[in-house]
């Protein structure tokens, strides 16, 4: 097991489906991490404030509403503006394949769709914690690269 990380699991936008977010939160907890869950329908500003106050190193964004292409890059930008350049962003939910490239380019380091084994998410956290791949990093690595 890798080092313990503080990880925010957030639900940006208006969809009310958080089963996936809770399953991921639980898997990360059982993997030995400290998980802060934001609850539903958070704005990008609220999510960034939570990441800052909680001094989280990772944030997992869950979206099933189709608004990921707007919300995820917005959160990445707000994190950079707040100087939180070492925060690693990953996402999940219903994210079509064509949308993933632009999200990676915006600073998201992994996208986990339905059916992803929870062990894979834990492996990603461990790998990402060992490289300089925060949202402000020039590294263009992403999971599954």
């Amino acid at each position: 097991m890798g080092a313990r990380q503080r990880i925010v699991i957030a639900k940006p936008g208006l969809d009310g489906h958080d089963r996936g977010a809770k399953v991921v939160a639980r898997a990360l907890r059982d993997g030995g991490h400290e998980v802060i869950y934001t609850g539903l329908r958070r704005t990008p500003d609220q999510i960034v404030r939570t990441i800052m106050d909680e001094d989280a190193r990772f944030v997992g964004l869950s979206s099933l509403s189709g608004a990921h292409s707007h919300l995820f890059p917005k959160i990445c930008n707000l994190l950079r503006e707040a100087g939180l350049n070492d925060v690693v962003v990953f996402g999940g939910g219903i994210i079509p394949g064509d949308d993933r490239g632009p999200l990676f380019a915006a600073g998201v380091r992994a996208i986990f769709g339905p059916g992803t084994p929870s062990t894979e998410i834990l492996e990603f956290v461990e790998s990402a914690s060992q490289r300089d791949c925060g949202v402000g990093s020039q590294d263009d690595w992403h999971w599954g690269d």
Partner: protein
Amino acid sequence: MQLARQLTAIENGELQVEETKGLIVAITGPPGVGKSCLVDGILHRLAPETKVAVLAVDPTSPLSGGALLGDRIRLSVLDDDSKSESIYVRSIATRSSSGSMPSIVKDLASHLLANSFDLVIIETVGVGQSEMRCAAVATRIIVVEGPARGDGIQAEKAGLLELADLIVVNKSDLEGAERVVNDLTISLTLTNDAPPIIRTSAIEGEGLDELAEMILSLEERTSSRRARARQQLLMAHENILIRNPAFDAIIDRMSEEGMGIEEALVILDE
């Protein structure tokens, strides 16, 4: 370094802090009585005039070492831009501490008081009757009870209630709250320095103005001083134990190799 990063460094043992005197209020009580919602109600009333920091403690898994920290969800006050600037909320996992109150919370609270916060509220994990470790950290203790706490004998039992500087009976909108207030009041008439009891309903707002006003000027219950000192001593001693470099290795040997407790104590003493 920004405040949140400093707190992480303190939590990880990388930054030492001096003790800072100030008001540290623990809000404690059984799971599900409404501690988080009461904290939200208090913050809505004290902010922005009073700068308040909240340390919300949730349990660490004894199996994985991980934790799910969910107290922020109920803090609607953070969505109010006119108030949230004077509030800081941090979720804390109990990590390796044996009880509900990690000793590091004392250092975190000290650091917040030294950084211009007027009040630090510690929201404890949901606790039972004999979990009193919060007395080692907090300068005032508020015990929250709900409307369904069993018969009148429960109010007579020794324990956490004896350390309360204020007792709050929450969920007063539900049936049974009045009887709990009565049971507690009768029990406390036999006490020399009985703490005040108030009724609140976090959901309907009853009693919250009174609670917010009282929290800033609560008097210390003198009879609990010795108990506080005892808890402080116990916590300090536990710290020494947990920081013993052999601690984790000994637990491994006890669970995997059947090492006995006598042998473990001998190795710890070396």
